[in-house]
């Protein structure tokens, strides 16, 4: 669908939702993945009132990624998260076939910052940084408490399931990597008892929450949400890849694990087992390292010949040093 066509179809939808005199302005594509795209635009009402919106959709004739939540499920998750007290954009409309925009949903566009280096370094967030880990802990506790009974069905993924998936990608790459091998073995040997599965966000890290100086405005990206060990989310946000240089502050390069846990427990998340969080932090470094190999495969096998994709293959080794620091510390 050409850009002009999309603008026309979007205008028709906006007029059905907000009135015949609405206009659409400032359409910009924020991201276009293989199967989903995100567009930002404004709906401007007759009196000049501006509604900042996001359209997240699968264009017509695209197929969903196997195992990922359906796009309508993402909308349901955002709505459930909002009801549970997780900062979230309001979902204003789930696309129907007559909208002619494919599958997806419209949501409020939230202003704020997601760029890690700005959150870590800009003076505007100096007051937020010391509080942020505790606040994110509280958000995770509320997120994990969401009752999944009322939601569309989600995949259950155990540590062993995910380890097997990563192993497959690693073996397909074919290069022997002794440090990853050490991590595979350590993770298999140290996997904690599987807990009763709860909702897991699955990608809770820098880039997927919007902040302003006052705090977290929204949690984004429910594409990897599943049922599993809730401590996976606490471990992932501590994984060194997401510290952006702030290696002595485990939580996102700005906060301490103690603060994250204090926020989690104070919000009713239950007693946190630090060893379990550390297990998932280690798992996170192996996960990101193997994901780099997955992207390298897309470069080498011709799916994406960009330099950026190629260079991500050279970031696997960052995770090797992170894994050594965890599993074989020198001092």
């Amino acid at each position, binding site marked *: 669908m050409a850009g002009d066509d999309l603008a026309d179809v979007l205008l028709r939808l906006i007029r059905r939702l907000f009135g015949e005199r609405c206009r659409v302005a400032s359409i910009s594509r924020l991201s276009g993945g293989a199967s989903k795209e995100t567009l930002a635009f404004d709906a401007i009402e007759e009196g000049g009132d501006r509604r900042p919106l996001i359209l997240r959709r699968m264009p017509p004739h695209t197929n969903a990624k196997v195992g990922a939540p359906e796009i309508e499920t993402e909308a349901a998750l955002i709505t459930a998260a909002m009801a549970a007290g997780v900062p979230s954009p309001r979902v204003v409309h789930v696309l129907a076939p007559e909208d002619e925009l494919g599958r997806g949903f419209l949501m409020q566009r939230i202003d704020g910052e997601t760029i890690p280096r700005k959150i870590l370094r800009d003076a505007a967030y100096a007051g937020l940084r010391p509080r942020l880990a505790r606040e994110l802990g509280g958000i995770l506790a509320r997120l994990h408490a969401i009752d999944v009974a009322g939601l569309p069905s989600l995949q259950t993924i155990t540590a062993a399931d995910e380890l097997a998936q990563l192993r497959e990608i690693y073996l397909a790459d074919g290069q*022997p*990597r*002794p*440090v990853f*091998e*050490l991590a*595979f*073995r*350590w993770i298999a040997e140290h996997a904690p008892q599987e807990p009763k599965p709860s909702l897991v966000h699955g990608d809770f890290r820098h880039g997927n929450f919007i902040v302003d100086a006052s705090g977290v405005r929204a949690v984004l990206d429910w594409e990897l949400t599943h049922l599993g060990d809730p401590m996976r989310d606490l471990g992932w946000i501590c994984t*060194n890849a997401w*510290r952006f*240089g*702030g*290696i002595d502050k485990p939580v996102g390069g700005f906060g301490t694990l103690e603060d994250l846990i204090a926020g989690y427990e104070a919000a009713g998340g239950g007693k946190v087992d630090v060893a379990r969080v550390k297990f998932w932090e280690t798992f996170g470094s192996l996960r990101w390292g193997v994901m780099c190999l997955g992207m390298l495969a897309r470069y080498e096998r011709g799916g994406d010949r*960009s*330099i*950026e994709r*190629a*260079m991500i293959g*050279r*970031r696997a*080794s*960052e995770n*090797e*040093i*992170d894994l*050594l*620091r965890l*599993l*074989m510390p*020198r*001092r």
Partner: protein
Amino acid sequence: MQDRPDPIDLVRTVAQTLREKLMPQLSGSSAFEARVAANALDLVARQLERADASHATEMQRLESLLDRTGTLEDLNRELCARITDGRLAADDPGLKQHLWATTLDKLAVDQPTYAAYLAENNKQ
């Protein structure tokens, strides 16, 4: 024998040209693309500069750790097998020394500004 200019010198000059002459005239995604390209060329220069020496020391360490000879790939495959089946344990001092040295050599090429690398490299 091949003639000069030296490949490392050439690659560095191309990276510098991208950064200093071309990038200022670009914007948005083209500027980003040029920056990634310059970074990639710098990586190539670092590898051309260091790989022969680091592969030789890696080979020596592997031969003594595994008590056999072979190509780098063979020996790395063998090392992986011994880690996986537990013949080489995580607390083996030779293994630890080898993995650290090899990983630091990789990062020196791949990502010499990575904070964890800088912290560990200062310990040497």
